[in-house]
C-alpha cells in the first residue's frame, strides 16, 4: 500500500508542477488542482497508514491508541480541501476575467511574439 500511495502522490505532484509551469492559464489551474490533491494525500498519509480502523475512541477506560487511526490529519485534510476548493474557484474567476480583458489565455495577458 505504501508504494501505491507514494507513487500516486509523486505522479500527481510531478504532473501538477509540470502543468503549473505551462504558459496557458487553464493548464496552470489544472496543475494547481493536481498539486493540491498530492498535498492532501500527503497530509493524510502523515497520520500513518492504517486499514479499517476507526478514528474515534470510545469514552472512558483504557484505550489502546494503536488500534485507532489518527483523527487529526483527517480533520486537517478536510480544512485544506475546503480552502483549496474556495481559492481555486476564486482563481478561476480571475482567469476568466483575464481572458475577457486581454482576449488571450496566456498567463502574461499577451502572446509571445514570433
Amino acid at each position, binding site marked *: 500500500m505504501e508504494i501505491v500511495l507514494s507513487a500516486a502522490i509523486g505522479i500527481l505532484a510531478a504532473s501538477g508542477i509540470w502543468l*503549473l509551469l505551462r504558459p496557458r*492559464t487553464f493548464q*496552470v489551474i489544472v496543475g*494547481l488542482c493536481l*498539486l*493540491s490533491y498530492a*498535498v492532501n494525500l*500527503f*497530509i493524510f498519509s*502523515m*497520520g500513518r497508514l492504517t486499514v479499517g480502523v476507526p478514528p474515534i475512541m470510545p469514552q472512558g477506560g483504557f484505550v489502546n491508541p494503536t488500534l485507532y487511526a489518527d483523527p*487529526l*490529519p483527517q480533520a*486537517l485534510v478536510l*480544512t*485544506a480541501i475546503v*480552502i*483549496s476548493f*474556495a*481559492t*481555486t474557484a*476564486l*482563481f478561476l474567476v*480571475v*482567469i476568466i*476575467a*483575464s481572458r475577457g*480583458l*486581454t482576449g488571450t489565455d496566456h*498567463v*502574461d*495577458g*499577451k502572446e509571445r511574439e514570433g
Partner: protein
Amino acid sequence: MNGGPDHLIIAPILIPFFAGALMLLYEDRRRRAKFFISLAATVALLFVAIELLNRSKGNELSGGNDIGFYLLGDWASPFGIVLVIDRLSAMMLVLSSLVAIPALVYSAAGWNRQGQHFHSMFMFLLMGLNGAFLTGDLFNLFVFFEVLLAASYGMLLHGGGQLRVRAGLHYIAVNLTASLLFLLGVAIIYGVTGTLNMAQLSKLVPLMAQENRPLFHAGAALMGLAFLIKAGIWPVSFWLPLAYQAGAAPVAALFAIMTKVGIYVLLRLSMLMFGTAAGISSGFGAEVLIAGGMATVVFGFVGVLASQGLGRMAAHLVLVSSGTLLAVNGLALAGGGAALLAGGLFYMLNSTLATSALFLLIEPMSREEGGIAAMLALTADAYGLDEREEDSQPEVGLAIPGTLTVLGLTFGACLLVLAGLPPMAGFIGKVAILRGVLATDAVSPAVGWAFVVLLLLAGLATLIGLVRIGIQTFWAGDGIVPRVLALEIAPALALTALMLVLTIKADDVLRYMRATAEALHAPAIYADGALGAPRAVDAEPEEEE
C-alpha cells in the same frame, strides 16, 4: 485578571470579523455607513491592541513579560487551538491597526467607490492579519493566512482593469503554490513530532531523536520557503513589484504590512524552534536568511535606482525593507544578540509606516499633467496600459491650500525615514542595526561588513531614487498645482506625525524592542506561558455550584 479567560485577546479577530460580516448586509451604495462602521472597527482595534501591548509589558513579578493566552473552545493547551499574545504579537497588532486607519481614511476619498465590497474585504484582511499574529498553532496559522490571502486577492483586483487582473493572476498563482508548500511543511512537522502547537514544538526540538531531525528540518525548510515567498526574498520576489504597483493606493498601503506577516512568522518560528536552546538544530537556516536577505537588499536597491515611476520604486523599497529584516533575523538566529534584533524591530516599525505613507502619496503627487505624471504615462504606455477610467470622474470634497508644500514635506519625511538620514527615526533604527552587527562575533567579520556596506548602499540608492522623483515633481514641475483633497493628504500626514512621535519617543520604543528581542531569545518564556495556560473550567469551579 481574575483567572477566567481573557476575552480581550480574541477581540482583534472578532471585531473585524463582525464588522466585515455586518457590512455585507448593507447595499454597496451606502458607503458612508460602511465607512463609519469600518472606521469604528479599526479605531476599536487600535485601542484593544494598545491595551494588549500595555499588558504584555507585564510587571516586576512576571519579569517584564506577560504572556496572555486564550484557549479556543476551552480545550487543554497542547491539544486544543490556542491564541497567544506576547510583546511581539502585541506590537504587530498595534502596527497593523496603525497602517489600517490611514489606508481606510484615504479610501473614503474615492477608492471605495471603484468596486464592490471594499470595506468588507478590508476588514477580513485585517482579521486574517491579526489572527496570524495571535495564533499559537501552525495549522491555525495556515487558516488565518488563507483568510488574509483570500481577502488580499479581492483587494488587489479592486478597481479592475487589465493591469490589475494580470498582476492578480500572478499573485494568486504564486500564493496558492506557496500555501501548498506551507501545508507540506506542516504535514511533515506533524508526522515527525505529533504536534502543531508552536510552544510544544519549541520544547520538543531539543529532545528530538537524531534520525528524525533531517525530516523535521526538511519540513521546517518547506514551511519557511512559503513564508519567504510571502516576505519577498530575492529569488522568489518577482511577483511583488508588479502586484504592489498595480494595487489601488489604499490597498498598496495596507499591503505594506503583508510582507511583514511573513517576516513576523519567520522570526517567531525560527526563534522558537531553532533558537539557542534548540541543541543541535540551533541556528538552522540562519545562513539562508542572511544570504537571501542580503541578496534581496541588492535586488531592491538596484530596482529602486532603475525605477522610473514612484509606484515601482515604492515596491522595491518594500523589498529593501524585507531583505534587511530577513538578514537581521538570520543574524539574530546565528546568535547576533538582542541589541541587533531590537534595532531590526525598530527599523521594521519605521519602514512599514514610511512605505505605507509613500504608497498613499503616489496618487496625489502624480495627479496633474507634468513632472512625474508624464513619466508615469510613459511607463504606462510601455506596459501597454489603457487609460485609467477611474480618475475621470469629478472629485468632490475639500481641497487643501498649499498642496505642493504639504505634499513635499510629507514626501521629504518619508524619504528621510527610508534612506535612514539623521533627524528621523529611520536613522536610529539603522544605527541600532549597524551597531549590533559590528558588535557581534556570531558571524565572520566579512559577512558583517558586507551587510553594513549593503545597508548603507541601500540608503544611498533610496536617497538618489526618491530625490530624483521629488525634484521632478516639486521643483521641475510646470507650476500646475494638483487638486488634492484633505481626506487624501491627512492619512499621509498622520503617518508622518507617527514617525515623528517614534523619533521623539525613540528611547522608550527601543527599550520595548530590546525587551521583546530578549524575550525572543528565551523561547522558554513563550513556551511555558502558552503551555501553562489553565482551562476556564479548572480556574473557576465555584461558579458551577
